[in-house]
């Protein structure tokens, strides 16, 4: 039986790698479709044709796209991420510090929102149909239906403009104490937590409700098991796979959320870097950021699938 699990996990990993290759291919070609010639754009109007040709050659722009793709992939794998067009700095240098910042923001948000949202999601599924469940459901649908920037600007309005508890949009780099640090992270983290939690709650609730309506739960009910025993012993272990899946999918909303939140709070993270790169059309930087995000997303999804495989009692 264990070899079966191993082969399923292996299969899943292969699919993940293939998907990542397809996705980076798509990202590369989408950005290569740019109408203007990069060398001409970089050198400006006054450039001589010779200079443009020279730069094109130096940047390998005169090679076929497939060759450039392979070169780029080889660079990614060996850690040579290329050079940013906009300010001529190595991309690895631009990204490293900001990557840590984004991971910090995402990590803190995950730490807070996962326990919070799981509790709400599971309890509202168990107490299905009660006033509590209704309130939770309406609130989550409300948060899901509005854009992230609205959640963020509402938070700013409440906590910074009216209550004056927290600094508004500016993000300062001078941290003197733990208090400063908390104040700095509070607003982005609170906003992101709202966005991500709403997704987790909705999906967890659906997963648990589905499990609770299975025949074996009815069986447990009929044999007289207590409510807590039904939920904790019978339903939850079986709902683990779907719940982890829901968690991974919802955490991927972190990616969408992070793009908006970093921009609105001016947070020096990798998403802000990417948005700026899109504004300046800095292709190598966009490609690298996009692949980092996609890889992060795929890793989350793959981990969730593997946990779902391992936690499936039928495979043990």
């Amino acid at each position, binding site marked *: 039986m264990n070899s079966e699990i191993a082969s399923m996990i292996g299969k899943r990993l292969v699919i993940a790698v*293939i*998907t990542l290759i*397809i*996705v980076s291919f*798509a*990202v590369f070609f*989408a*950005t*290569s*479709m*740019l*109408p203007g010639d990069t060398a001409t754009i970089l050198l400006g109007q006054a450039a001589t044709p010779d200079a443009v040709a020279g730069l094109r050659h130096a940047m390998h722009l005169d090679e076929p796209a497939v060759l450039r793709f392979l070169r780029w992939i080889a660079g990614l794998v060996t850690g040579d991420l290329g050079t940013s067009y906009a300010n001529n700095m190595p991309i690895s240098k631009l990204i490293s510090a900001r990557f840590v910042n984004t991971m910090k923001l995402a990590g803190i948000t995950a730490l807070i929102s996962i326990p919070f949202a799981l509790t709400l999601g599971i309890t509202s599924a168990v107490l*299905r*149909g009660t006033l509590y469940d209704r309130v939770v*459901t*309406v609130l989550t*649908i*409300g948060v*899901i*239906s*509005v*854009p*992230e*920037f*609205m959640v963020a*600007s*509402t938070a*700013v*309005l409440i906590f*910074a*403009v*009216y209550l004056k508890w927290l600094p*508004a*949009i500016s993000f300062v780099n001078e941290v003197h104490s733990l208090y400063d640090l908390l104040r700095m992270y509070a607003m982005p983290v609170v906003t992101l937590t709202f966005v991500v939690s709403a997704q987790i709650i*909705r999906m967890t609730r*659906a997963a648990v409700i589905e499990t609770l309506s299975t025949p074996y739960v009815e069986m447990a009910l009929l044999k007289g098991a207590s409510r807590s025993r039904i939920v904790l012993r019978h339903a939850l272990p079986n709902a683990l796979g779907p719940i982890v899946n829901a968690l991974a999918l919802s955490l*991927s909303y972190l*990616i*969408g959320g992070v*793009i*908006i939140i970093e*921009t*609105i709070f001016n947070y020096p993270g990798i998403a802000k870097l*990417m*948005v700026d*790169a*899109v*504004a300046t*059309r800095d*292709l190598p930087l*966009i490609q690298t950021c*996009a692949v980092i*995000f*996609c890889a992060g*997303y*795929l890793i989350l*999804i793959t981990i969730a699938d593997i946990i779902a495989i391992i936690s499936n009692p039928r495979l043990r």
Partner: protein
Amino acid sequence: MTQSAPSTSAAPGIFGYTFSFVGILAFAVILFWAVVALFAPQIAPYPIGKIVDMDYFGPMSSKLWLGSDYLGRDMLSRIIFGARYTLGIALAGVLIASSSGVILGMAAAVVGGWFDTALSRFMDAMISIPSKLFGLVVVAAVGSSLPALILTLAFIYTPGSYRFARALAVNVNTMDFITVARIRGENTLYLAISEILPNIIRPVLADFGIRFVFIVLLLSGLSFLGLGVQPPLADWGALVHENIQGLSFGSAAVIAPSIAIASLTISVNLLIDNLPRKIRDRSA
């Protein structure tokens, strides 16, 4: 999703369906925005680019109902015109996304074999790119002119529509009447359009609505980042973007367009949640 609460005030049946009160209310809001978008030039109190207030981020007043924006233009007029772009772009995008998704999904189900496998694999890979990220990459590549935006949004949401339609079509495809039609010698086009489509059209329409909400949200998000609709045009997301400085004064110029977006997306979600079970359910 939400349990269909026992509707206390069910309206008399329309086309044999009964709609709940919340559903009718949601429909009214959607209709309201559609009318506003259609007749924007007639409704708006001021021309869209006219500076009517000497002050910027002016407060709400009887003359300027929603105050003025960062240049002193009338906010109400700008939102009324913004409805055109938000609704128009999203509608065009969802029409393209849903129709191409449904056509490909039905084709995959009917043709089957390697065509189905290859297409599904590709679409799954596309789905695994987070939509906002996808949007950023494509906007970087093709720019943000209106047609480019519409195609980008359609392209991003086609895979989801494909997966939904294919799942439905595969179920229908195993039915006896399809086998009968195949034996009768009908071609693929006939099978898809005359046999499968009528059986999946209702859940597909519900999916259409949900996808519309996704597209409105993504479009607003992109515009908010300054990468969607470009000035001098402005959809609701772009209105928030250009007035974001007013947030620290609690200006209506930031809040009002956000509320407009929320009213639209929440209404569509509520309408779909409150559709009669007959229309909404997957099982056709």
